[in-house]
């Protein structure tokens, strides 16, 4: 579903999502060519969640993310070159090479933290919401986490506090465990929670909760807009579960382009979709779904789409070039920044 906003906004949204996809494909290709970035996680397949969510960001709002942060950063307007530089440990990276993929942080964009510890984004984002309420800024706190975070007790402690104190936080649970297999099958495990519907967890605390199709831009946008409206109006926290089917790229312990790079033409000529993971590309990849919706609504044509794709790819090439040409930090700088 196309969100009910202006054509201009829709095109910005689409470009953001395409940027996330092409950025991470470029990153995976780099690692396959031998560049080491440590263990990393990609957002491919979840673009339809982060991009519409953060299109509702207003100055003064805050964002807290996780180890799967690249998409959130790009959706928040982070510069792809500086983001890639951080992932490659360069001095020009946002964290001056100290954080790497797991911890990219951009304070000036309201991006407070990317924690590599599962579940930690909930208490931190709840705290940011507490600050907004105390300071009466009218701002909201965007809290991203995966379904696995709900295996940690601190998640419940945080939701309890947010509900008790009516804090302006949007808990965005990006459930990417649909169709994930277990470690025993040699794949990255999905979450293991006994409760079948995650929204019941939040409802227990009287937090308004809704589950949406995380590959449907319009549905995500509408749910987040309602939640943000409640938070700005002083009506407390909301919980949104965005369900996505695990992308082939993130099924294994190390991200891999098992079906190659995504081809936008797969959106309108289905016969060109490769056999491997055909179903995912046909109906579960939110980015391709959004592409089809734009064509149906006559907002874009195959030609304008392909032109935008070429532009985005060129931008990503520049980002990679910028990062690779950037110097490593001075070893002595390892001693800086322990304290303010």
């Amino acid at each position, binding site marked *: 579903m196309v969100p009910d906003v202006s054509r201009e906004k829709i095109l910005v949204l689409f470009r953001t999502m395409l940027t996330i996809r092409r950025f991470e494909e470029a990153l995976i290709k780099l690692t396959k060519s031998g560049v080491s970035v440590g263990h990393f996680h990609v957002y491919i397949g979840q673009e339809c969640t982060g991009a519409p969510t953060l299109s509702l960001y207003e100055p003064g709002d805050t964002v807290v993310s996780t180890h799967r942060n690249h998409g959130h950063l790009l959706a928040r307007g982070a510069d792809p070159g500086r983001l890639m530089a951080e992932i490659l440990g360069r001095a020009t990276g946002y964290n001056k090479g100290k954080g790497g993929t797991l911890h990219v942080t951009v304070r000036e964009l309201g991006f407070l933290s990317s924690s590599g510890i599962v*579940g930690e984004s909930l208490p931190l984002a709840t705290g940011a919401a507490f600050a907004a309420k105390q300071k009466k800024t009218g701002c909201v706190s965007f809290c991203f986490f995966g379904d696995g975070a709900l295996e940690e007790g601190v998640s419940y402690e945080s939701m309890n506090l947010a509900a008790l104190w009516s804090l302006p936080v949007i808990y965005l649970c990006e459930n990417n465990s649909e169709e994930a297999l277990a470690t025993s099958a040699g794949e990255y495990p999905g979450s293991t929670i006994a409760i079948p519907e995650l929204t019941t967890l939040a409802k227990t605390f009287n937090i308004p909760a809704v589950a949406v199709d995380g590959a449907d831009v319009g549905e995500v946008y509408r749910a987040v807009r309602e939640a943000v409206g409640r938070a700005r109006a002083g009506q407390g926290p909301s919980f949104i579960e965005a369900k996505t089917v695990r992308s082939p790229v993130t099924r294994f312990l190390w991200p891999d382009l098992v079906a190659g790079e995504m081809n936008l033409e797969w959106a309108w000529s289905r016969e060109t979709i490769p056999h491997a993971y055909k179903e995912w590309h046909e109906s579960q990849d939110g980015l391709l779904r959004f592409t089809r919706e734009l064509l149906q609504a006559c907002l874009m044509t195959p030609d304008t789409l392909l032109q935008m794709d070429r532009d985005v790819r060129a931008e990503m090439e520049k980002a990679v070039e910028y990062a690779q040409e950037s110097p490593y930090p001075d070893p002595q700088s390892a*001693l800086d920044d322990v304290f303010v």
Partner: protein
Amino acid sequence: MRELSYAEAKVEALYEMMQADERVTLIGNFFLGLSPKRTLLARLREQFPSRIFDLPISEAGFCGLATGAAMAGLRPIVDVQTASFIFQAFPQVANEAANACYMSGGQVHAPVIFHILHGVRGGGASQHSHSPQAMLWNAPGLEIVLPSSPRDVKGLLKAAAARDNPVVFVDHAKLFEVKGPVPEKDEIIPFGQADIKRPGRDVTLVATSLMVQRALKASEELAGKGIDVEVVDPRTLVPLDKKSILDSVAKTGRLVIADECHRSCGVAAELAAMVAEEGFVYLKAPIKRVATLDVPIPFSRPLEAFVEVTEEKIVEAVLALMR
């Protein structure tokens, strides 16, 4: 004697422990982290499917569960995975397991093993590179083991299985590929018995875990410069074999300690304090520590190399002491 990789020796120990005692239960099963060698664990899954458990991401929950199960008669081995994750379970490890025996006046035993992978693994950045053994050493009631070779990991794991106290088994992912002799016959390496990994006359180099491997390489280089280094591996911090360390210092008169904890209040700091108190008369020179610099571990490789303990830094410290 046959040669095994560290990973093979470790899995062999786990297998034999499970075979010998049906109370042994694996709470979690990433004992080889993300190493390609992790496929070795498939054998355990096949043989003991009802005693191996996949876990939700719930460190506080499963460490507490294992402690309670140990109090009630099981012998759980908990895989906390990356050592930094033990912070998520500090109440259960440091405040429950560690105190259980003492605060019950000796009535309750909690023979649980907490398995962690510590240290700089490369690109782990600040939240996946911790060496929490010194913090854990500050919680009396926990036994702490740090193997450094294939033979030790097998013998120490089997010793841990026979202990009635909570044990923190501090392992290092960078050891998995190390090869070395491991006896065919069952060997238990008792806790509290240091190992002289290399005899020498000029300087005592106490090292733990992966740093033992780096200390041995550094010693070879120093031998080329005419310096004869004795490498002492305590193997367990609790209980600590003070005598072997002091005997070595009595022989050489010089002490360098290489350990991956942060310098302040780290393992090296405690060992240095112990020797300063109990072996001061043997010392011909001040004690030197080679430890991780007092900053969180950075991501970028040149920064990581600047703060971590390297072979070069160990060589430099020994040379400085001999000048």
